[in-house]
């Protein structure tokens, strides 16, 4: 056991919201009941691309039990267009509005067209069925290559180039010279299908538009402040007129950053004068919220005889869905981010297609790109006769490595992750038998900072109350409380965290970008330091001392000592309450590298893949609560395996999603996965006082290529499309 300088960090306390969540008391958005509340439902387009010729809601409005009907015509007059920033991704206000309720044209099957509020959800659904819409169907286009082809149907007027909304180019060095210096060059092209985050809790929102003009929203969101700001933008209200109370959130993975229902519920409330709750059905979630882009990616890598990458080129075309914003930017940032390469050209295309407008999904854009890079490196390693991890080690990015899109790395854990993979029991164990294959891959995610705020108030019994604004998807109440406890020298259980509404805490960015334990953690750390400073002053007053030390939870000055709790009991007599607070906007988010080792077995007659053994490795900087770090690694790995093997939006030629249920979307069940072993690597992030790196995302990057590499060893053929499902494996 290594000696730790910490008392609380690295331990595994019970999460603070645990009792509520195992007894059913925790309140999620759909659980909210308000007096006089009515229920909303949404009419969605059956067409992937069509002009709306006529929209008549009169029969719906006349149905007994219906309180209000809204369409895009109920939005306030269009203000000047602007960018709505969601923290992890952004969107033009016009696009956001267009996605929330279609106007003029529908751009995907599932596109919201109108909404109804009624006495209950059944009547609301009946009313929706009474809305009459005449559509003029238009030709649809469903993939990036098709949308980029000359003569493709156009979704929007005025994009940069047909259906291409944005072109990205990063270039360093001399690509031609780099490839000329290579002895082995491999170039391959890959397609990946659209996949969904698959959070179990459907989107929901309740709104009450009060007679005083303020709008109160209760919803399932990764960011109460971005939900507030986006809703205010759509409704053309000052942000202070909207208050968002974040309910418990049943998963998000990036998909609950954007707003879909909140402005609609607000408009229905304004019309009906009642609180309006809307809860999506599972089909609504699949067809009406943002999945992650399908893509076509072409990558070419050259390596010299020493196993050094001499040049790398990537061409990335990502499907944005109906509105620009395909997360091709992060794809371009990360495609070669694990490696130190002198000569690089990366081109990215953000392509609109007639599918749901895409959203963030755990390291958005990165898995699509890493699939290409990491399988090509596997192939090159084989051609050169080098161990695939050794080839990665020879090229691993380090402190000072310049990435093609500009930044130079501070300290990162790429080498350490690869070394941990290489040294693992798993990597050194034999494969269990025939038709089995082992694959490895690594991935990098840069992580983000963004603003966070926190307040700590000291209780007379020596505990503290933590007020914060980061919605807790995976145990962040506890990882934040532990940081406060560490600073204050108290137990994690002595911190009582509460996540409050947007009126009650300073601005806090999304729970996304792997930022919460890092950035809100930093805010909590700073707030705790503020508490310490104030408490020292109280001790100085008590002791009439000049200098007070604070160490290991003990205030001291000369012979005088008081524990944190003892001093907390005397605050009343020394000037009253102590409240520490901090607001931060850190830039030092340390990127995280993750690796995966996976063993698979393929049934040669059916093409079915069984996952035999999995080891996920990731640099956490400092694992505050190791169990929840492992949980992130295991969860991202499971999602990546599902993405690799079976998940996809199965669209017919008309753009209808045919498998919009959990039965046919085929996420992994408990029976589809083995235990997921984890190895936490800790290379401290210099941008955080405890060295924290966010661990939420990088773990989903390696599974796609690791599965592809393992399958190659099991079946002797390299696959170039995802999902790598049984029929694909048999080429049938």
């Amino acid at each position, binding site marked *: 056991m290594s000696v730790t300088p910490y008392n609380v960090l690295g331990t595994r306390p019970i999460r603070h919201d645990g009792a509520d969540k195992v007894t059913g008391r925790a309140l999620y958005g759909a659980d909210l009941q308000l007096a006089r509340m009515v229920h909303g439902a949404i009419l969605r387009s059956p067409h992937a691309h069509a002009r709306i010729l006529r929209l008549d809601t009169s029969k719906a409005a006349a149905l007994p039990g219906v309180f209000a009907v809204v369409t895009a015509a109920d939005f306030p007059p269009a203000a000047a267009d602007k960018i709505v920033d969601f923290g992890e991704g952004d969107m033009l206000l016009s696009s956001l509005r267009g996605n929330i309720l279609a106007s003029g044209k529908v751009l995907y099957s599932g596109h919201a067209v109108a909404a109804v509020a009624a006495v209950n959800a059944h009547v609301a659904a*009946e009313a929706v069925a009474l809305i009459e819409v005449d559509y003029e169907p238009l030709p649809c286009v469903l993939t990036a290559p098709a949308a980029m082809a000359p003569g493709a149907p156009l979704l929007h007027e005025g994009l940069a180039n047909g259906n291409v909304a944005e072109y990205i180019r990063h270039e360093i060095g001399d690509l031609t010279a780099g490839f000329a210096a290579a002895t082995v060059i491999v170039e391959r092209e890959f397609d990946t299908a659209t996949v969904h985050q698959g959070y179990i809790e459907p989107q929901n929102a309740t709104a009450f538009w009060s007679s005083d003009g303020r709008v109160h929203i209760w919803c399932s969101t990764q960011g109460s402040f971005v939900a507030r700001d986006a809703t205010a933008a759509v409704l053309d209200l000052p942000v202070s007129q909207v208050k968002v109370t974040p309910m418990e959130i049943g998963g998000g993975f990036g998909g609950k950053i954007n707003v879909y229902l909140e402005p609609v519920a607000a408009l229905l409330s304004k019309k009906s004068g009642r609180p309006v709750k809307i809860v999506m059905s599972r089909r609504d979630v699949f067809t009406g919220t943002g999945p992650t882009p399908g893509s076509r990616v072409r990558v070419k890598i050259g390596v010299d005889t020493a196993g050094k990458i001499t040049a790398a080129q990537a061409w990335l075309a990502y499907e944005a869905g109906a509105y620009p914003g395909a997360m091709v930017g992060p794809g371009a940032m990360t495609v070669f981010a694990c490696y130190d390469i002198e000569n690089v050209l990366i081109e990215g295309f953000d392509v609109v297609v007639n599918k749901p407008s895409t959203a963030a999904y755990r390291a958005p854009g990165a898995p699509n790109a890493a699939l290409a890079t990491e399988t090509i490196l596997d192939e090159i390693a084989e051609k050169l006769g080098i161990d695939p991890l050794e080839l990665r080690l020879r090229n691993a990015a380090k402190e000072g490595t310049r990435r093609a899109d500009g930044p130079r790395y501070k300290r990162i854990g790429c080498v350490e992750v690869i070394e941990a993979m290489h040294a693992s029991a798993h990597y050194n164990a034999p494969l269990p038998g025939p038709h089995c294959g082992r694959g490895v891959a690594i991935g990098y995610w840069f992580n983000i900072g963004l603003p966070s705020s926190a307040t700590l108030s000291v209780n007379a019994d020596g505990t503290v109350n933590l007020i914060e604004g980061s919605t807790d998807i995976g145990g962040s109440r506890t990882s934040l409380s532990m940081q406060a406890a560490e600073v204050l020298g108290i137990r994690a259980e002595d911190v009582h965290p509460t996540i409050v509404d947007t009126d009650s805490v300073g601005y806090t960015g999304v729970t996304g970008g792997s930022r919460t334990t890092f950035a809100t953690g930093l805010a909590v750390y700073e707030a705790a330091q503020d508490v310490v400073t104030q408490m020292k002053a109280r001790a100085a007053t008590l002791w009439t001392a000049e200098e007070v030390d604070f160490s290991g939870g003990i205030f001291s000055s000369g012979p005088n000592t008081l524990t944190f709790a003892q001093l907390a009991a005397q605050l009343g007599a020394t000037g009253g309450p102590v409240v520490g607070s901090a607001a931060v906007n850190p830039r030092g988010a340390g990127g995280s590298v993750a690796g995966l080792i996976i063993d698979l077995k393929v049934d040669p007659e059916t093409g079915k893949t069984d996952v035999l053994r999995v080891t996920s490795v990731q640099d956490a900087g400092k694992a505050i609560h190791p169990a929840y770090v492992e949980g992130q690694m295991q969860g991202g790995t499971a999602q990546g395996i599902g993405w690799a093997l079976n998940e996809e939006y199965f669209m017919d030629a008309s753009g209808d999603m045919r498998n919009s249920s959990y039965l046919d979307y085929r996420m992994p069940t408990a029976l589809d996965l083995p235990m997921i072993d984890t190895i936490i690597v800790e290379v401290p992030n210099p941008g955080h006082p405890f060295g924290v790196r966010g661990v939420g995302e990088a773990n989903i990057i390696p599974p796609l290529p690791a599965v592809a590499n393992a399958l190659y060893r099991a079946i002797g053929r390299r696959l170039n499309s995802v999902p790598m499902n049984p029929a694909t494996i048999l080429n049938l």
Partner: protein
Amino acid sequence: MKAFDYTAPATLPEAVGLLVSQPSARLLAGGTDLIVQLRSGRKEADLVIDIKKIPELNALDFDPIAGLTIGAAVPCYRLTAHLVIQSHFPALAEVASWIGGTQIQGRASIGGNLCNAAPSADSIPLLIALGATALIAGPGGRRTVAIEDFCTAPGRNQLASGELLVSIQIPTPAPHSGAAYLRFIPRNEMDIAVVGAGVAVTIADGVFTAARIALSAVAPTPLFVPAAGAALVGQPVAPAALEAAAQIAQSAAAPISDMRGTAAYRKHLCAVMTRRALEIAVTRAQEN
């Protein structure tokens, strides 16, 4: 979901009377298909008749002479837990544990699986292979239909207006018989068969004396392939015989391409699933 009335008759004549007076009524047993279909709008009902209070439809009886009687409303979990079914009809116990997951099996019935008449229904190929029959009651009395004749099109069955399924009868297998159902699904549970094969064989002195083979998800209805079973009869138990029967089953299949698999892939799987199911059935027959 559109509004409907609900009633739970206590006797079969009452249920038949309700069906005659309200032909658009829907029957509810486990509800794992019906409630999903009503909610999605694929089916509508003015009246839902819950048949679970009718004693005969809840019967689960075994008699060595009469065979096994499975009331139309008996949920799968009762079959899985039934000791006689485990020992005499292990393939049936398996199928009952594979339809949906644990919770679905708490409600879903084999009778419902049959009446829902999905081409991919897991239980139907096995019932066909086991030579099962459906006992139907209606205003004109009772009649019996062979399971292979029960389904007429996707979602459609032999039941005439006013009729309902009372029970499924499975004859007691002859000595040295074995049966198996195998399906291919991309996940390991909670999936719809891409292809399923139900088989039953009887062996005497190393030679097949009877065999029945049926497939799911390869035709508009579960597909009985008499020729595949006939090809086994008289043949010694050997891999070549199994493979030949599997090939006949494969050629009888006329699958479509959809989100669950391409036609070519399904066609390929027919032979694999049939052969593998036969291997299990042979082992069971040799152990009996």
